[in-house]
C-alpha cells in the first residue's frame, strides 16, 4: 500500500508507509516509515512514531498555508475510534458468568476480530493520507511534511484548546456563508461553473450514500451475529437430543458456523470496498469544494481590488498602492485557477479509478462469498437428505 513516487525533475524518490502501529489505552501510535533519496533528509531510510493529533496538525498546516490555496488538500484521516468496540468487550466481560465457556470464547474471538478490523482500517486511513501528500508534486516538498516524517521527537502538537476550536467553528461558519454567497455568482469560466454545480450535488449524495451503506452493513453484521447464536443453540440441541435429530442438529450447527463466518466476511468486505470508498470521497469532495470556495474568495478579492483601483484612479489617490494590490489579487486568482483546474481533473481521474477498482473488487468478493455459501449449503443438504 505504499506509493512509489518518482520526481522526474529531481530524480528523487519518496516512499511513505505505516510499518507498525500500537494501540494503547486511549491512543494509537503509528510508526511512519520513510524511504527517500531527497537530499534534504539526513538518511535514506528512517522511522518515527506519530499520533493522530500530529497528522491533524500537518493537515491543518496545509489548509492554512496560502501557497496551497490552489490545491485539493488531502483530507485528514478520521480519529481512531475504538470506543464502541471497547464497550462491547467490556460488556462481554461483565456477562461472562451468564454464558457457556464455548459461547464466551466465541464471542470474545468475534470482538477481538472486530477490534483488529477497526485497527487495520485506521492504520490504512492514516497511511492513505500520507501517501496522497507524498504523491502530490508540491505538497511532498513541504517543510512541515519533512519535519513530520523525520523529526524523531514528539512534535509537541497539542490538540486545539477551546478558544481555538471556537475560532475554527466561526471560520467554518463564515466560509459556509461565504460559500453560499459566492456560489450564487455565476462563473464566467464554464469549466468551474460546471464543477461547482457538480460538486455541490455530488458531495451531498455521497454523504447520503455513505450513511445508507453504513446502515445496510450494520444490519448485515447483526444478521451474522444471530446466525452465530443459532449455530450455538443447534449445537447444544444436538448434544442433548436422544433421537435421530442429534446428528442432524450437529450437522446444521456446523453449517451455520461456517456460513456465518462468510456472512461476517461479506459485511467486512462491503465495509472496506463500499463504505470506506464512499466515506473517502465524501471527504475528498469536501476538500475539492473547499478549493472552489478558496478560488471564489480569490475572485471576489480580485473584483474588489478592481473596484478599489477604479475608485483610486477616479479620486487620483493611492493609485500605486491600489495597482499593486490589484496585481497581487489578479496573480493569486490566476494561480489558483490554473492549479485548481488541474487538481479537479486529477480528482475526477482518481475518483473514477478508485470506484472502478472498488466496485470490481466488491462484485468479485460478493460472488466469491455467495459461491462459498452455496457450496457449503448444497454440501450439507446432500448429506442431510442422504441420511433421511
Amino acid at each position: 500500500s505504499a506509493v512509489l513516487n518518482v520526481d522526474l525533475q529531481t530524480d528523487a524518490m519518496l516512499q511513505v508507509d505505516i510499518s507498525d502501529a500500537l494501540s494503547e489505552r486511549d491512543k494509537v501510535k503509528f510508526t511512519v516509515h520513510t524511504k527517500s533519496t531527497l537530499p534534504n533528509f539526513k538518511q535514506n531510510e528512517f522511522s518515527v512514531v506519530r499520533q493522530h493529533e500530529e497528522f491533524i496538525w500537518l493537515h491543518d498546516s496545509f489548509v492554512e498555508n496560502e501557497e496551497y490555496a490552489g490545491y485539493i488538500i488531502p483530507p485528514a484521516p478520521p480519529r481512531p475510534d475504538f470506543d464502541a468496540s471497547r464497550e462491547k468487550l467490556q460488556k462481554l466481560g461483565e456477562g461472562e458468568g451468564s454464558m457457556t465457556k464455548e459461547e464466551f470464547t466465541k464471542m470474545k474471538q468475534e470482538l477481538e476480530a472486530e477490534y483488529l478490523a477497526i485497527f487495520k482500517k485506521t492504520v490504512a486511513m492514516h497511511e492513505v493520507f500520507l501517501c496522497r501528500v507524498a504523491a502530490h508534486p508540491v505538497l511532498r516538498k513541504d517543510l512541515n511534511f519533512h519535519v513530520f516524517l523525520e523529526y524523531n521527537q514528539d512534535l509537541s502538537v497539542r490538540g486545539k484548546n477551546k478558544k481555538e476550536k471556537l475560532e475554527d467553528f466561526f471560520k467554518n461558519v463564515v466560509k459556509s456563508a461565504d460559500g453560499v454567497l459566492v456560489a450564487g455568482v455565476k462563473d464566467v469560466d464554464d469549466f468551474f461553473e460546471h464543477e461547482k454545480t457538480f460538486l455541490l450535488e455530488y458531495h451531498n449524495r455521497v454523504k447520503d450514500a455513505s450513511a445508507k451503506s453504513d446502515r445496510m452493513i450494520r444490519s448485515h453484521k447483526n444478521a451474522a451475529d444471530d446466525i452465530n447464536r443459532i449455530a450455538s443453540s443447534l449445537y447444544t440441541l444436538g448434544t442433548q437430543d436422544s433421537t435421530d435429530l442429534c446428528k442432524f442438529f450437529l450437522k446444521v450447527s456446523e453449517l451455520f458456523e461456517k456460513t456465518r463466518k462468510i456472512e461476517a466476511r461479506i459485511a467486512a468486505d462491503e465495509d472496506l470496498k463500499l463504505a470506506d470508498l464512499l466515506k473517502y470521497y465524501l471527504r475528498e469532495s469536501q476538500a475539492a469544494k473547499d478549493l472552489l470556495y478558496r478560488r471564489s474568495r480569490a475572485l471576489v478579492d480580485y473584483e474588489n481590488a478592481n473596484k478599489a483601483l477604479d475608485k483610486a484612479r477616479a479620486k487620483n489617490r493611492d493609485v500605486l498602492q491600489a495597482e499593486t494590490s490589484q496585481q497581487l489579487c489578479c496573480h493569486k486568482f490566476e494561480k489558483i485557477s490554473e492549479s485548481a483546474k488541474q487538481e479537479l481533473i486529477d480528482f475526477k481521474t482518481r475518483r473514477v479509478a478508485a470506484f472502478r477498482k472498488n466496485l470490481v473488487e466488491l462484485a468479485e468478493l460478493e460472488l466469491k462469498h455467495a459461491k462459498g455459501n452455496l457450496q457449503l449449503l448444497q454440501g450439507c443438504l446432500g448429506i442431510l437428505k442422504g441420511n433421511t
Partner: protein
Amino acid sequence: MSLCTELVLDITYHQVKAPLFLVAQDLTLFCICVNVQSQPASLAAEDISTNSNGPKQDSLFDDDPEDLFAEATEEVSLDSPERDVLLSDGPSPAITPITPPTSVITPRIGHTHDDMFTHSSFDEIEEEEGGDSFDIHISVSDPEKVGEYMTSMSLFKRSEFAVKRRFSDFLGLHSKLASKYLHIGYIVPPAPEKSIVGMTKVKVGKEDQSSNEFVEKRRSALERYLMRTVKHPILLKDPDVLQFLESSELPRAVSTQALSSAGLLRMVNKAADAVNKMTIKMNESDAWFEEKQQHFENLDVQLRKLHTSVESLVCHRKELSVNTAQFAKSAAMLGNSEDHTALSRALSQLAEVEEKIDQLHQDQANADFYLFSELLGDYVRLLTAVKGVFDHRMKTWQKWQDSQMLLQKKREAEAKLQFTNKPDKLQQAKDEIKELEGKVQQGERDFEQISKTIRKEVSRFEKERVKDFKTIIIKYLESLVQTQQQLIKYWEAFLPEAKAIS
C-alpha cells in the same frame, strides 16, 4: 396392511369489509382446503402438499388399529368443566385393509371470493376475536370400494365441500379436544394464540403491510394447527373434529361466549394445578417417565433459546432488506449526479442490483419466519401440552393414592366399629369400603391407562418431531440455497458493468 391417510391442508384468507350499520365488524374469511386421500401403508406417501409453508403432510395411523377405533367411540371421562355433547357423524368406520386406490386426487377447489360473507355473523356482537371467519374447502378423494370393503373415507359424508369458520371456532374446537383428551394422556396440539394488537389493526380496516402480514401469520398458524390436529389418529376420528371440518354451521354464539368463561375456568384450574404439582411427590416406579420429563424440560429450554435467536434473525433480515432498498435509492441518486458517463452507468446498475437484493432479503426473512421461527414456536407451545399430560398423570396417581389412603382410614374405622353395637353404622362403613375399593381399583386402572397412553403418545410425538424438524429445516436450507443462487446471478451480471468503467 394398516391404513394410512394423507391429509393436505391449505388455508387462504380473505378480508371482508363489514357494512356500515354493523359496529366495528371485520369479517375475516379463511378458506381451508383439505385434501384427504387414503392409501395402504405399503405405498409411499406422495407429497401432494400445496404452496403452504406448513409441515409435510404425511400421516400414518397408529400401528394398533384396534385400540384406535375403540377409543374413538368411547365416552370420555367426565371430569372436565365443560362438556359438549359428543356428536356422532354416522357409523364408526370399520377397520379395513384396502387395495391401492385407483382414483385420482381431487383437484383443490379454488379459493373463495372476496365478497363472501358469513351470513350468520351479522347479528352478533363478538368479542374482539369473533369477527373473522374462515372458509374451509374440503375435497376428499374417494377410492373405489372393492367388494364389501369400506374405506376409512366413510369418515366423511361427502367428497367435496366447503365450510366457513371463525378464528374463535378453532379455539372452541381446541378447548373441546383439550377437555376431552388432555387429562387421559393425549397430547392435544395447542391452538394459535390471540393477539389483541394484531386483531385491532385488522378490525380498523388498515390495508397496510403490517395488517396483511398479521393475517398471513394467522392463516399459516391455523393451517399448521389444523394439520397437527387431524394428523393425530385419535383426534381425527373425534366427532367434534369431524363436525368442525364438515358441518355447514357450527353451534354459535353460546359456545363462543361460554368459551371465554370456560377458558377462564381452565386457567384457574391450571393455576391450582401448578400449586398442587409442587406438593405432589410421586414415587416414580418407572424411570422412563422421569427421564422423559427431564428430556422435555431440557428441550423446552433449548428450543426457547433457539426461537429467540431466530426471531432476532428475522428482525435483522427485515431491517437489512429495508436498509438495502434505501441504499439502492441513494446509489441511484449518486449515479445520476456522477458526471463521468461510464461510472454513472455503473452506479445505476449497482442501484438496480441492490434493489433486487433487497427483495431477496425480504423473501429470505419470510422463509426465516414461516419455516424456521414458526416451527420452533409451534414446538415450544406443543411442549406445554406434553408437560401437561405428564402433570395429569401425576394427578391421576395422586387421586389413586388419595382413594387408597381413604380406604385405609375407613377400614380402620370399620375395625373399631366392630366392637360397638351400631349395626347401622357398621353396615354403612362396609358399604363405603366396598365403594372405595371400587374407586381404588378404578384409580389404579386409570393410572395404568394414562401411563400406557402417554408412552404411546410420546413415541408418536417424538417421531413427528424428528420428521417435522428434518423436513422443515431441509426446506429452510433450500430457501437459503435459492437466495445464494440468485445473488450469484445478480453479481455476475453486474461485474462486467463495473469492469466497463474506463
